[in-house]
């Protein structure tokens, strides 16, 4: 984008700032859009589960205008700040949550190289920033001054912080397989048919995927783990004192977090923008053929990615409306007694597997099956992974790409 503006001789600083603004606007649109979609989806899916229709009258037959209607209603609701509240902190808390949830979108790739900020430490950055969301909650609970909201804030903080550990362990597995923390690279590593996805890479990664999903559900406070706003015990947890726009901002933090977590799951385990059938490569829509074709290929990839994200959200909603809520100590025991040991076992398992069968189940099968097709498959994959030539090759000779030294492809 910036190069394009520079080419039309806009002053440098204008070009860069405009490019940055466009990308921010795009990301904000994605974050709020995902929030709107998931709100609408939640209403419709939960209605279907509960044998009712869900919103139908607002805008068209399927009530798709419901999220804006909710937003408008909440906007004109009165914003009450309780007397015992600590003013500035009370106002600040929702924005901390929203900012952390939003700036995680920076590092999330939507298609091959379509990412706002291609960080070399992408996955690590996402984990770090999603860890900060708990501050917003603690501040919110503490600043509202009431005993109940403090209870809710404490519970949620303990839960989110403790679920970060198994989630980090599960995220390390795909990083281990690919050898780099760069999300675009992880996505490209899963190109080709759906059996190239990491989830089918080996039994351990398959199990890791499910552990990751449980930890993800727990860390975004959804479904059976939603202790914070446990209606039946603590009225509404730390959200009791919030109303009107601040309440919306808190929910603007929770719903994009849902999309983000399922998006991350799809990139790490389900092949991100690589669909089950590699349409883009079959139709030769790759940049090698023509830059515009590459762009369309990426567009297809993005649709794939968003479809998987929405699928993840539907599963979370489905979980929420069928399971009752777990008790705080049960949530903690599942984390410490089940998730952490299992995740570390899977990590050890994958390491062992990588050592014994480097490629993963299907590549091995392919090799055993017919050595000749292997070169074709790897060729497809190598040619299929376009984008800027990987730094390794371009690397000046004197610094051999360390990855190649240790992990054979």
């Amino acid at each position: 984008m910036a190069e394009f503006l520079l080419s039309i001789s806009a002053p440098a600083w204008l070009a860069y700032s405009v490019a940055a603004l466009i990308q921010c606007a795009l990301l904000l649109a994605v974050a709020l859009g995902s929030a709107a979609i998931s709100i609408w989806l939640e209403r419709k899916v939960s209605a279907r589960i509960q044998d009712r229709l869900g919103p139908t009258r607002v805008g068209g037959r399927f009530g798709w205008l419901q999220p804006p209607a909710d937003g408008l209603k909440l906007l004109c609701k009165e914003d009450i700040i309780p007397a015992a509240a600590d003013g500035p902190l009370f106002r600040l808390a929702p924005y901390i949550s929203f900012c952390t949830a939003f700036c995680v979108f920076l590092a999330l790739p939507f298609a091959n190289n379509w990412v706002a900020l291609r960080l070399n430490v992408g996955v690590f950055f996402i984990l770090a920033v999603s860890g900060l969301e708990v501050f917003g909650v603690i501040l919110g609970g503490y600043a509202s001054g009431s005993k109940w909201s403090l209870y809710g804030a404490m519970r949620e903080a303990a839960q989110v912080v403790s679920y970060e550990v198994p989630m980090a362990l599960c995220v390390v597995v795909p990083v281990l397989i690919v050898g780099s923390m760069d999300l675009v690279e992880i996505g490209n590593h899963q190109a080709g048919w759906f059996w190239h996805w990491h989830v089918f890479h080996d039994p351990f990664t398959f199990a890791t995927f499910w552990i990751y999903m449980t930890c993800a559900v727990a860390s975004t406070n959804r479904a059976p783990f939603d202790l914070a706003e446990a209606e039946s015990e603590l009225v509404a947890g730390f959200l009791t004192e919030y109303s009107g726009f601040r309440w919306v901002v808190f929910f603007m933090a929770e719903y994009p977090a849902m999309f983000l977590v399922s998006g991350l799951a799809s990139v790490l385990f389900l092949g991100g923008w690589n669909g089950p059938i590699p349409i883009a490569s079959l139709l030769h829509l790759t940049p090698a053929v023509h830059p515009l074709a590459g762009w369309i290929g990426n567009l297809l990839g993005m649709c794939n990615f968003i479809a998987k994200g929405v699928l993840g959200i539907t599963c979370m909603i489905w979980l929420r409306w069928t399971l009752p809520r777990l008790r705080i100590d049960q949530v903690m025991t599942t984390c410490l007694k089940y998730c952490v040991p299992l995740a570390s076992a899977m990590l050890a398992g994958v390491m062992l597997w990588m050592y014994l069968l480097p490629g993963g189940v299907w590549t091995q099968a392919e090799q055993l099956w017919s050595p000749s097709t292997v070169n074709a498959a790897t060729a497809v994959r190598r040619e299929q992974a376009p984008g800027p030539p990987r730094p390794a090759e371009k690397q000046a000779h004197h610094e051999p790409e360390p990855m190649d030294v240790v992990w054979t492809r």
Partner: protein
Amino acid sequence: MDAVNWHTIFFWLFAMLACGFAVGVVVTNNIVRMACCLVASLGAVAGLFFLAGTEFVGAVQLMVYVGGTMVLLVFGVMLTARGPFVSMQTGGGQWILATIIGGALLAVLLQAAFSVPQWMAPKPLVPQAAPAPTAATLGLALMGVRVDKLERPDPVLRKGMSGYLLAFEIISVHLVVVLVGAAYLARAKRALGPRPIGLGGRSAPPLGAAQK
């Protein structure tokens, strides 16, 4: 003002944030406000790390320091704050003395910072074609293969080939020991003795006596 150097703009932004909130920590009396200012300043410092090109350290700072230690600290603040907004004033005299010493120290440091000429202007930037800094080299250094010293000309500097593997192991053991010790230390002592329900167990703390 031909090409505004992005690096500078963001540097000043993060620097101002970091120093501003650091001063905020010193000035405010309310312990909760102090914690929040500290979190903000550490976040700004993480931004500075990113700016300085060391992404991995920035991410570690965000995750371990801000996401971990600060949450610990905030929990500590909430568990020990008697009233919701406890604040303890320090005597006026201490303030003046502290600011004098602090100011002197600051002057000395600043003078030192700006005295060495080659620190002032940065080296001509390595051509942009320099590879995007991957965390791989740092990761390998931790594991013991000092990739960046492979072709160092003079033998003396090449000595540090062994990398940080030993230090890395010691640190992990150290961390485990300290955390287990801390958990054991923080455990409430009155664990198994029978506690009459009515009286709220141990002698009720002298409420309000301690604070001004």
